[in-house]
């Protein structure tokens, strides 16, 4: 059975080739993993600040939150807009459109291949963190780990769909990366990468919870670090965003391909 042209054999072949492809860029990916240490910088800032008490997380919990934020970010990072823009502009999209497989699957496979390549580097950085902060060391329970893994995957799915929505605008604007920057700013502040959501005033928190951003880092990071969190509300919101974004992406994609075709492919 095929879902949007995909079956198990294609998944295996795509993942295998994309993992091999990403391994070719392992040095670059190691640098990308290293460049994702923003949560550790924020941790050192918050640790030395009197405002720490307002976060509702004590010393060790704060360490674990930011390490979790780092790990969640490593495995939910999406660069769809950049890859897609390049493919559309260079005409690499045309052969993909002529194969009986939805082109978006290739990008999903590239991301998963990249995540697998990142794994040892992210684990190494986490190891170094524990060497520096041994008191923060913890091993989540199997159930906790699986829930965190699922929440991170859902975060990746939301981020991927959000970027696919913007990437589809490439069919109209050709420079969707500029639009992606508009998304990056609220992501940076409201996702939980710079500070846990509890750092914001309650009114802002209430408002932000209606956006997809806290479910990209804050929620999965709290699940991983073992913070008390409303799992049903978190997963429910993640699922709602996926269900909302998926048809939007497919509709915009179809309209975009029609326009791409109208403009000369």
């Amino acid at each position: 059975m095929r879902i949007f042209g995909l079956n198990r054999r294609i998944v295996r072949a795509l993942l295998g080739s994309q993992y091999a492809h990403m391994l070719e860029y392992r040095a670059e990916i190691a640098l990308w993993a290293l460049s994702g240490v923003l949560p550790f910088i924020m941790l050192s800032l918050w640790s030395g600040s009197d405002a720490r008490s307002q976060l509702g997380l004590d010393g060790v919990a704060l360490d674990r939150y930011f390490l979790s934020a780092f790990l969640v970010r490593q495995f939910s990072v999406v660069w769809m807009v950049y890859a897609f823009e390049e493919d559309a502009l260079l005409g690499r999209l045309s052969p993909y459109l002529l194969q009986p497989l939805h082109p978006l699957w290739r990008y999903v496979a590239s991301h998963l291949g990249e995540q697998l390549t990142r794994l040892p580097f992210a684990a190494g950085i986490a190891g170094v963190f524990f060497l520096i902060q041994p008191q923060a060391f913890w091993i989540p329970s199997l159930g906790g780990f699986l829930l965190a893994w699922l929440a991170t995957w859902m975060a990746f799915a939301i981020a991927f769909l959000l970027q696919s929505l913007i990437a589809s605008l490439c069919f109209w604007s050709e420079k969707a990366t500029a639009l992606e920057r508009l998304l990056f700013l609220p992501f940076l502040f409201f996702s939980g990468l710079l500070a846990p959501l509890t750092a914001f005033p309650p009114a802002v928190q209430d408002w932000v919870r209606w956006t997809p951003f806290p479910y990209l880092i804050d929620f999965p990071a709290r699940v991983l670090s073992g913070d008390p969190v409303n799992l049903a509300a978190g997963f429910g919101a993640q699922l709602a965003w996926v269900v909302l974004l998926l048809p939007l992406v497919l509709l915009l994609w179809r309209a975009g391909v029609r326009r791409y075709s109208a403009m000369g492919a």
Partner: protein
Amino acid sequence: MITVERLSKTYRVADKQPGLAGTLRHFLRRRQRDVSAVRDVSFAIAPGEMVGFLGANGAGKTTTLKMLCGLIYPSSGQVLVAGHQPQRRHPDFLRRITLVMGQKQQLIWDLPPMDSLRVNAAVYGIPDRVASRRIAELSDLLELGEELTRPVRKLSLGQRMKAELLAALLHEPELLFLDEPTLGLDVNAQLRVRQFLAEYNRRTGATVLLTSHYMADITALCPRVLLIHQGQLFHDGPLDRLTSRLAPERHVRLELEEPAPAEAFSGLGRLDSLENCEVNLRVDPASLTRVLAQILERFEVRDLEVNDPPIDQLIGELFRQGSL
């Protein structure tokens, strides 16, 4: 296999004048105009035919090719390819066609072609054993060996093109759309690709529609030629009929034993040049036999040649003139 009726494609393009005033005008009040890339083109291609698609840059041949394979939506007209409307890109249609563009690639740049072939085999649902057999057959025909396990970026242009062809033909398409498949290849590589395409057509009975700037590709492979000029179909038929249409006269070259004055050639056609003993005439094909008999009667002839002007020269001239 392919039916095209009154196919047209119009693009809307923005016009911008140079300079600051032009830039400001372009920013504030963009002027757009419609450009007709393809106009009222009709033709039909039977299964197994190899058809050459000729035309200058911008004549509309790539646009037509892209409409036939479903990459571009037509503005008007009807296209039916293998029983499908191409622009719907139905999976069954996609499994029956392939598009090879000389300037674009589908192989993953940093990996050996074999990795891309495995992905293609999975995407097209070709069982592993069948895929291995086809890869062996096609690589044999294309003279590809260890190149299949070397990263694409390390391959020469010719090797890369052959690997692209292999990837594009792995699912044994019935219809091949080839856009400049020999572009940039050296003479030997061009020849090998040509031989391969002829052999593939013979073995599988696939229909081939080929565009190329190299006349040698067309003359070697395509008994039938479509010439598109300024978006319109100018010729549909055998290549030699195109030649007689573009050049209704034959070239006669004479080498005489003794020089003769220009007046001696009156009534023998149009005198192109006369230099000592060498004479070039253009003669109406209908009176060629009579003219040759008269020449042999009037002059002592050391050598005589009758030629059609080279087709690429004729088409080149046509494109340069920009009108028919």
